[in-house]
């Protein structure tokens, strides 16, 4: 099982500090967004409440963790969790002040939203039945979990140019879609050794692409090297500035696959020479021996359960029970009920899957009927997992900033229609529907056999909710195919259209036929014919229904639609500051060079780049000091701005208009200087150094010696503080202090002020203390 790395636990304290500063009004929304989003915390539509996306590596979660999650879900969210197509579990309607409690409480059970969003290593997928599937080559779950642990330890995993998605499939059925992830590992055996075929550059989203072969075969012990090498290539070369075109697949498009392979090989060679990457070996827990078959019973639901929800494990005597969780939405009570099954069936484990369902593994065959009874008692719609009824749907426009249509409500209407007319039909197990509220692919529409994504068309001068129909998507290693566009349907007509289309499909397939034959050869023509009857949108006055989305009472509108937060990160924080500075400069220029605007411009210019250096100044004074230390002393910024803090302090209302104009010119120049440094920053956050200049000084010689022998506390400290004020950052002060209270107190106080105490040497009855100014 996954163990949450200590580094993530430590990092959560920093999140807590940032959150507190945000709540205290010390940090603005744009900057805090750059902190919370890589923690998998996104704002809901409207920006007042939040979603927290908990990563579940390989979809594997045990009863204890599930119970903790149920508790947190009940305590801090709207009590309905959402299972995503990436095997994460989302909590919704979380108050921002509670996000730290969610993080802290879950981390005890090795769950975390770290990397659940933003430009990070996202949840690493694996087949939901890894380790138990009769078809698998070997268990890839352990690799997925170990790689997650390894990558979550690295800070750079959370400051990538854009998100990076990995997946592991255990066989050629390819449950985890190795060609529609940035990096996909397919289990293979070569010369009786375990290893992987590796694919790179796939992905869904609004601009999906199928991955390309990177390695024919890598032995399993090389897994960490390969993942690290690809990550490093992306980290160093990915375009951080163009958020809409900066996934790994676009980098490959820009530089070409050959160049990417070259960079990858170089990186890999270096890693092999310099690093020793060994992933944690995760061993299976031994399970009891089980024997016997599945109990029989005449209960009709039980019969359907056995037919649609039950699969044999590769281990004799064990079954896995797959539950349909409609639209992935599961209440905290239901989560708790699942976790509590662990009391009665002691060995069970849980898996989330990309159909937004949950499976219960390690169920002894002899327990299946008893388990069924317990499920029936607690769950309503768990039958028919992996069937046409299991419509996959994203969260849609009610909560998502990017959402156009209310996809879950449409999914529910589709399910009603299917439940009424299509259960047990020939197509029931062969077809699937994937639904998305917008062109982004949280609902995985690019690989749906039948897929729809939301859009908007203007009719009668009003926005009308529409869906684009796509057919023929498939994820199956080299046979992976992206669904192709067929036509547009007004949202109101989708259910009627699908009903008619499915009836025709049923007529056109045989029990034993390959569904893809139908999908690729006949389905498009049939769909287009039916579409003709359903594409018309009547005028508003004629039929208002078309102007109202599923599950809504009022006219369709795009109110609340916003930009996605998913790419928010370090660069957004920098740009937010620079834009504040720019606005302040423009205002200053138009309004008498007002002091406030000058201060805002100077402060924000100085602060903007500090985030890259890990500095989070708490005040304007601190920001200017940090800038001096980290940019001017480090020879990144020009020495001519050495006195920015004095300029800042000097911005008072005694200044005449002419003097303020002069300051304005200085600040504007400084702003442009910082902007240039930002432009020159390379994709790994490094800055070109300025030519070495007089800033390099003798390392050891103190700039000043202060003899405080005989000076009592606290006057000795006051004097040291006064002298330090006049030194430059990095200068060294040598202080002579008496033993006793002075040596006990003064160095501590200086440290509290942020200075570095380099050494304390006893010299007879006094001490020589060397202090480096902060």
């Amino acid at each position, binding site marked *: 099982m996954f163990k949450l790395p200590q580094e993530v636990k430590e990092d959560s304290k920093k999140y807590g500090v940032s959150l507190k500063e945000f709540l205290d009004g010390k940090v603005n929304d744009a900057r805090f967004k750059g902190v919370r989003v890589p923690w998998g915390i996104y704002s809901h539509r409207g920006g007042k409440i939040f979603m927290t996306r908990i990563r579940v590596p390989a979809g594997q979660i045990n009863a204890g963790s599930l119970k903790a999650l149920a508790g947190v879900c009940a305590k801090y969210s709207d009590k309905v969790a959402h299972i995503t197509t990436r095997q994460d579990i989302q909590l919704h309607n979380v108050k921002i002040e509670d996000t730290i409690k969610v993080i802290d409480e879950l981390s005890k059970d090795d769950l975390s939203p770290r990397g659940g969003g933003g430009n990070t290593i996202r949840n690493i997928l694996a087949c939901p039945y890894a380790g138990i599937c009769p078809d698998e080559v070997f268990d890839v779950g352990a690799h997925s979990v170990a790689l997650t642990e390894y990558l979550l330890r690295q800070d750079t995993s959370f400051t990538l140019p854009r998100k990076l998605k990995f997946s592991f499939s255990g066989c050629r059925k390819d449950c985890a879609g190795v060609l529609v992830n940035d990096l996909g590992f397919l289990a293979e055996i070569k010369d009786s050794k375990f290893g992987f075929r590796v694919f790179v550059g796939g992905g869904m989203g609004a601009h999906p692409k199928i991955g390309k072969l990177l390695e024919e075969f890598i032995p399993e012990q090389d897994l960490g090297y390969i993942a690290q090498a690809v990550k490093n290539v992306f980290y160093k070369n990915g375009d951080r500035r163009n958020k809409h075109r900066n996934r790994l697949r676009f980098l490959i498009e820009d530089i070409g696959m050959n160049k990417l392979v070259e960079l990858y090989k170089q990186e890999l060679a270096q890693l092999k020479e310099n690093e020793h990457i060994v992933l944690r070996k995760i061993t299976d827990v031994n399970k009891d021996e089980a024997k016997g078959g599945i109990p029989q019973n005449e209960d009709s639901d039980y019969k359907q359960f056995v037919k649609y929800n039950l699969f044999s494990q590769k281990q004799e005597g064990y079954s896995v029970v797959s539950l349909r969780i409609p639209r992935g939405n599961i209440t905290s009570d239901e989560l708790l009920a699942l976790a509590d099954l662990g009391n009665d069936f002691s060995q069970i484990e849980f898996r989330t899957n990309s159909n937004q369902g949950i499976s219960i593994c390690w169920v002894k065959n002899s327990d299946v009927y008893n388990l069924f009874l317990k499920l029936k008692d607690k769950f309503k719609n768990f039958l028919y997992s992996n069937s046409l009824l299991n419509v996959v749907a994203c969260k849609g426009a009610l909560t998502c900033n990017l959402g156009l249509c209310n996809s879950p409500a449409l999914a529910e209407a589709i399910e009603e229609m299917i439940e009424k007319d299509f259960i047990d039909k020939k197509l029931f197990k062969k077809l699937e529907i994937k639904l998305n509220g917008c062109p982004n692919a949280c609902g995985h529409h690019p690989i749906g056999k039948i897929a729809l994504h939301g859009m908007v068309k203007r009719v009668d001068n009003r926005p009308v909710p529409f869906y684009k129909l796509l057919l023929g998507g498939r994820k199956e290693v080299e046979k992976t195919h992206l669904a192709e566009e067929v036509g547009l349907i007004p949202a109101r007509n989708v259910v009627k259209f699908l009903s008619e289309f499915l009836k025709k499909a049923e007529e056109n397939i045989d029990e034993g036929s390959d569904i893809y034959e139908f999908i690729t050869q006949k389905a498009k023509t049939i769909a287009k014919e039916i579409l003709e009857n359903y594409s018309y949108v009547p005028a508003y006055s004629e039929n208002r229904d078309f102007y109202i989305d599923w599950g809504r009472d009022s006219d369709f509108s795009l109110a609340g639609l916003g930009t996605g937060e998913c790419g928010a990160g370090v660069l957004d924080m920098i740009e937010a500051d620079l834009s504040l500075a720019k606005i302040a400069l423009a205002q200053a220029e138009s309004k008498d060079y007002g002091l406030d605007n000058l201060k805002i411009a100077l402060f924000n210019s100085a602060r903007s780049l500090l985030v890259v250096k890990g500095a989070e100044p708490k005040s304007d004074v601190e920001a200017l000091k940090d800038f001096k230390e980290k940019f001017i002393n480090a020879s990144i910024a020009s020495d001519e701005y050495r006195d920015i803090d004095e300029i800042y*302090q000097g911005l008072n*209302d005694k200044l005449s208009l002419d003097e303020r104009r002069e300051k304005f010119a200085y600040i504007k120049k400084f702003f442009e200087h910082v902007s240039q440094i930002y432009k020159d920053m390379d994709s790994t956050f490094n800055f070109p150094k300025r030519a070495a200049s007089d800033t390099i000084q003798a390392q050891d010689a103190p700039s000043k010696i202060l003899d405080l022998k005989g000076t009592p506390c606290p*006057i000795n400290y006051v*004097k040291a*503080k*006064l002298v330090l004020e006049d030194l430059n950052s990095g200068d060294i002060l040598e202080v002579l202090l008496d033993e006793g209270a002075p040596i006990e107190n003064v160095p501590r106080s200086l440290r509290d*002020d942020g200075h570095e105490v380099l050494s304390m040497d006893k010299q007879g009855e006094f001490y020589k203390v060397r202090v480096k100014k902060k």
Partner: protein
Amino acid sequence: MNLNEQQIDRYSRQIILPHVGGKGQDKILNAKVLVVGTGGLGAPSALYLAAAGIGTIGLVDCDKVELNNLQRQIIHTTPDVGMLKTDSGKKRIAALNPDVNVITHNLRLTSKNILEVIKDYDIVIDGTDNFPTRFLINDACVMSKKFLIHAGIFRFDGQIMTIAPKEGPCYRCLFPEPPPPGAVPSCQEGGILGAVAGILGVLQANEALKLVLGIGEPLIGKLLIFDALSSSFRTVKVPRDKDCSVCSDHPTITELIDYEQFCSIDKNK
């Protein structure tokens, strides 16, 4: 400016503070603050400012010390009764801190003299007890872009707000016009608990020191209200009045006004 040994000792407890240090103390020693009225508010305010080392303190008052003043105006002492308040204040400050240069303005502020009086100061502390002067000071500070720290006290209540002209609301944004004469009882009629005056006066000094040091969040756009009986503070946000007759972009008051004096500050002369 270099602090001498005595100054380092005298101000050591505030130099130690983060964000003060020697540079902060320098700012304090170079600051010029005008205290209008050496009464219930002005007395404690001026004493704390002097103690902190504010370099130049101006005192405005035209009254003489009376015995009934001593219940709250702690800058004056019993032997001072009958003396000009400004002189009494200067004497006391000189005894407290010789670093402070005290300038006495033994006069009543009017539309004619106020601009000349305030022009050399960075910050004005309003310790007056009547509305005509209060409005006059507000208007003059807005017109000459001076920080003004307003406070008012009545019986067991007090209020304070810092006015940064054009940046935050001014007193007229809060109260566009003075109340008609006689509508509001004066201290003489209403009474005042001395400690309430002390609390508000010290808060004014605190605001002034924050402005001088450039630290914290001054009460700009925020009216802090104190209730002595429940010992509670609350803060009320005060927006700028975009149509304010004096501080808006299209002011209707462009010349200073002497409202009728209704608080009988001259009665006992």
